[in-house]
């Protein structure tokens, strides 16, 4: 089973070939945006971190940006530094250079301010863009695929249709030797005992319990009921009454395979194969970033109420479980898994259709959100306060 991908110097395989413009701190976003607007095939990671945070968070931001820059979907990278950020720009540059891809850096303060930095950044990104524009796709085995999975804006159809489709595809990718990553630790609460039973070793089971306890303790720390935060008002209107109900429906998307281990938020895939958990929150901007910095070439995203967003360098395939939502939002939704709810199709039929679509997307076909550039809202998940 093959797809057509870009084989990178470090041996990884990309499904996209973008120039990533990476602000090393929130204060560099406007300059990065101006560069992205001007240069063909450039996309930006416009996050809001990188300064006045505690050192573990600053390290996490640096590591996340390294993961994003090293993603095989990125052909070249331009780092936009302000010059006084808390992230480690030098370390970021070195780590991306190590993959063998071209990297440039501009520093706003050194270049004499915004307008000079924008001009220098456009020139640098133009050169990078031309440099990678001739790269060609080659056939590669599906075992090179790293697929992220997620559900968002869920309703009662998610756990009974679209997440079942994701579970079907996840099992298939694992069987074919690929890598599948799922997260949303908040949505393990009330369903963690089922995941623990699927852990490959007791130690991995304990790690799953630890990340759930950590997330639940954080949620409880403000002394309130977490409902409205999770489940969201939309989840509740869609029929999900509690986090337990939401979680039990959410974990269906991980399929049935053994869980090989637990990754931290900024970890990258090195030689991980099979099904893995990544400790992330459920909210889209942060989990999409966490999954992209893993090195995932694509994400299968299940929704019931209709979540429209994607990610700058990782195509996001929307699998909609609610047939009414699909009709209303068909320009955002890629696959209609609502056919399962109304009895028109089986999970296997929609699963096979989704798998074939995923191979096409990995080979270059664009998803709906990608085509209309609905991928700007991303962020990095940090733990401590802004100080």
């Amino acid at each position: 089973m093959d797809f057509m991908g870009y084989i990178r110097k470090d041996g990884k395989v990309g499904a996209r070939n973008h120039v990533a413009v990476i602000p090393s701190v929130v204060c560099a976003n406007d300059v990065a945006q101006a560069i992205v607007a001007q240069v063909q095939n450039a996309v930006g990671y416009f996050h809001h971190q990188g300064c006045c945070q505690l050192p573990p968070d600053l390290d996490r931001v640096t590591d996340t940006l390294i993961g994003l820059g090293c993603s095989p979907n990125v052909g070249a990278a331009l780092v936009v530094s302000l010059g006084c950020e808390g992230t480690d720009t030098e370390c970021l540059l070195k780590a991306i250079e190590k993959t063998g891809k071209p990297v440039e850096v501009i520093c706003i303060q050194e270049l004499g301010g915004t307008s000079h930095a924008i001009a220098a950044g456009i020139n640098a990104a133009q050169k990078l863009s031309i440099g990678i524009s001739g790269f060609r796709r080659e056939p590669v085995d599906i075992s090179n695929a790293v697929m992220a999975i997620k559900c968002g804006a869920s309703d009662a159809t998610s756990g009974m249709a679209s997440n079942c489709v994701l579970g079907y595809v996840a099992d298939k990718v694992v069987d074919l030797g690929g890598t599948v990553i799922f997260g949303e630790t908040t949505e393990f609460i009330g369903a963690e005992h089922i995941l623990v039973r699927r852990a490959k070793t007791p130690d991995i089971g304990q790690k799953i319990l630890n990340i759930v306890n950590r997330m639940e303790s954080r949620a409880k720390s403000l002394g309130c009921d977490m409902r409205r935060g999770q489940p969201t008002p939309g989840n509740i209107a869609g029929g999900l009454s509690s986090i337990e109900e939401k979680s039990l429906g959410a974990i269906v998307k991980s399929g049935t395979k053994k869980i090989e281990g637990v990754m931290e938020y900024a970890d990258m895939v090195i030689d991980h194969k099979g099904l893995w958990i990544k400790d992330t929150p459920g909210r889209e901007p942060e989990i999409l970033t966490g999954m992209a910095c893993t090195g995932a070439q694509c994400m299968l995203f299940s929704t019931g109420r209709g979540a429209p967003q994607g990610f700058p360098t990782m195509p996001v395939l929307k699998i909609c479980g609610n047939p009414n939502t699909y009709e209303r939002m068909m320009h955002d939704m890629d696959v209609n898994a609502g056919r399962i709810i109304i009895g028109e199709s089986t999970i296997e039929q929609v699963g096979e259709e989704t798998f074939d679509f995923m191979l096409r997307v990995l080979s270059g076909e664009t998803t709906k959100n990608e085509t209309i550039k609905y991928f700007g809202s991303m962020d990095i998940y940090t733990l401590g306060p802004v100080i």
Partner: protein
Amino acid sequence: MNLNIALKVNDRDNVATIFAEVKAGTKVEVRDKKGNSETITVAGDIPYGNKIALFNIHIGKQIYKYGEEIGVATQEIKKGDYVHVHNLDSIRGRGDL
């Protein structure tokens, strides 16, 4: 006339999910995965994707979907009643307790 369908996911479940908007007093056909079915009259207006009780559930007792606990009843729930946040309480993530 075709009845609206409610799905019972697991044998242990005491609620079923209705994929239609249903008014109080209408009958729905509850189906499980084995093909068994039962007709129940719903006691309240129920929005799309929401749940009805398949049995009487006493206050403080567990509510099950997917064969797993999704919360506890905060009121006496009768067969056919609408089950949601007004009579089901989550027991997780409760920093208020």
